[in-house]
């Protein structure tokens, strides 16, 4: 479960006041809103990369508001993907596992499993510089899911892709999130993405989050 309870964020002149939302375990939630309304900031707040002035962040019944990003159990895919230029695809998939000191055999097995799930087995020895947009997206997703986090946060994951790749990644997201059972919060400004993926739909407008699951046409 992802629950934001009366979150207050102030970053310079930008503020979000009393933001609350709840996504049940295993659901795929989409948060919509105009560019600059604070959607990405909200994801960074959940990750622990931006501070909150008030409120609570609950992940799987656990108040993580004061925890470091590493302790929150989140898989995060930022809008720019932020792949590590000096690491190969294999090293990306192994990154979170090596930090957690998994054994070499366990890492090898998990990398193989992830690569098959994301159809990137042929890319394992490549570096980010030579990857296409869709391939980079798959690698970033694999890196985020490697340590089996219970929560996945996606920041505009389809914004820089062509139509064909976008449809591929939408299918992939649907399949991967169902197979892993990960609770997902996906940020976008695209209605079609939201319609295709969302179990729950939220709208962030003027600093307030509204649940619009039953009437997506209003967005």
């Amino acid at each position, binding site marked *: 479960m992802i629950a934001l309870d009366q979150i207050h964020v102030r970053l310079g002149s930008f503020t979000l006041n009393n933001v609350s939302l709840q996504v049940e375990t295993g659901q795929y939630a989409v948060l919509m809103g105009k560019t600059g309304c604070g959607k990405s900031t909200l994801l960074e707040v959940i990750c622990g990369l931006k501070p909150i002035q008030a409120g609570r962040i609950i992940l799987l019944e656990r108040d993580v508001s004061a925890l470091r990003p590493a302790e929150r159990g989140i898989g995060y895919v*930022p809008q720019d993907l932020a792949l590590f230029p000096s690491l190969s695809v294999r090293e990306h998939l192994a990154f979170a596992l090596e930090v957690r000191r998994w054994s070499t055999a366990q890492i090898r097995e998990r990398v193989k499993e992830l690569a098959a799930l994301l159809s990137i087995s042929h890319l394992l020895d490549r570096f980010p510089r030579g990857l296409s947009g869709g391939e980079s997206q798959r690698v970033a997703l694999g890196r985020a899911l490697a*340590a089996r986090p219970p929560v996945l946060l996606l920041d505009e994951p389809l914004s820089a892709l062509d139509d064909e790749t976008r449809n591929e990644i939408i299918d992939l997201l649907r399949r991967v999130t169902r197979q892993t059972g990960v609770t997902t919060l996906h940020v976008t400004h695209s209605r079609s993405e939201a319609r295709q993926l969302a179990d729950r739909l939220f709208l962030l407008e003027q600093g307030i989050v509204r649940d619009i699951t039953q009437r997506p046409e209003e967005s």
Partner: protein
Amino acid sequence: MTPVRGISDRVFLVCLAILGGSYLVLIVAMLAANIAYTSPNFLLEALRSREVRFAIWLSLASSTMTAILSLWVGVPLGYLMSRFRFPGKRLCDALLDIPIVLPPLVIGLCLLILFQTPLGRSIERFFPVTYAIPSVVLAQFAVSAAFAVRTMRVTFDEITPRLEQVAMTLGCSRSQAFWTVTLPEARRGVVTAATLSWARAMGEFGPVLVFAGATRLRTEVLPTTVFLELSIGNLYGAVAVSLLMVLAAMLVLLIVRVFCLGHT
């Protein structure tokens, strides 16, 4: 590379080549004049001198030590200045410019006075610095480190903090994110900072002369040798030692670029 097309592209590139090339011509002309002025015999004679051999060894050893020490402070300071806001940051920034702005001779004088204070004297009691080899390294370090700090700050400025942030969500502490993600990305900057501070230290003269003196076989580095040879009117010797410095510097910089950056 985008292909060059049309007369305007060519004119533009020729103008750039003329403007930039004039500096290259100056460097080559200076070196050629030096080479023409001396002969292999003078170079061999210089190399046969025990004092010159000591100066070469001390120059290479002290510059390498200075480069290591410069990275030692340059990497953390560059990272802190690039990534964090803290009280007094502007003051720190201004202080870091002082060794770059001040004449090197004044840096030497400041060091000399520092070691005349009670603190400096108490250090000297246990670990002699002034007019000894440590003073050569310290004089070079005081100037060179500022260049390493500036280089590392620019390097970290160019690496998006997003990489570290993602690493932290993947389970890294801040220090793990630094060591596993940021520092490997900063590799080229680290090599540049090291070579820049090494080269700066190799050519440092003013602060070494004031703080370490010019005692042969004790604190004499290659720039000091050039000065000493000139002061006794031995222009041929001075030119020969200058060329040895150029050769040593080019060799080391070339090795570093080939082995650390993978290109020439």
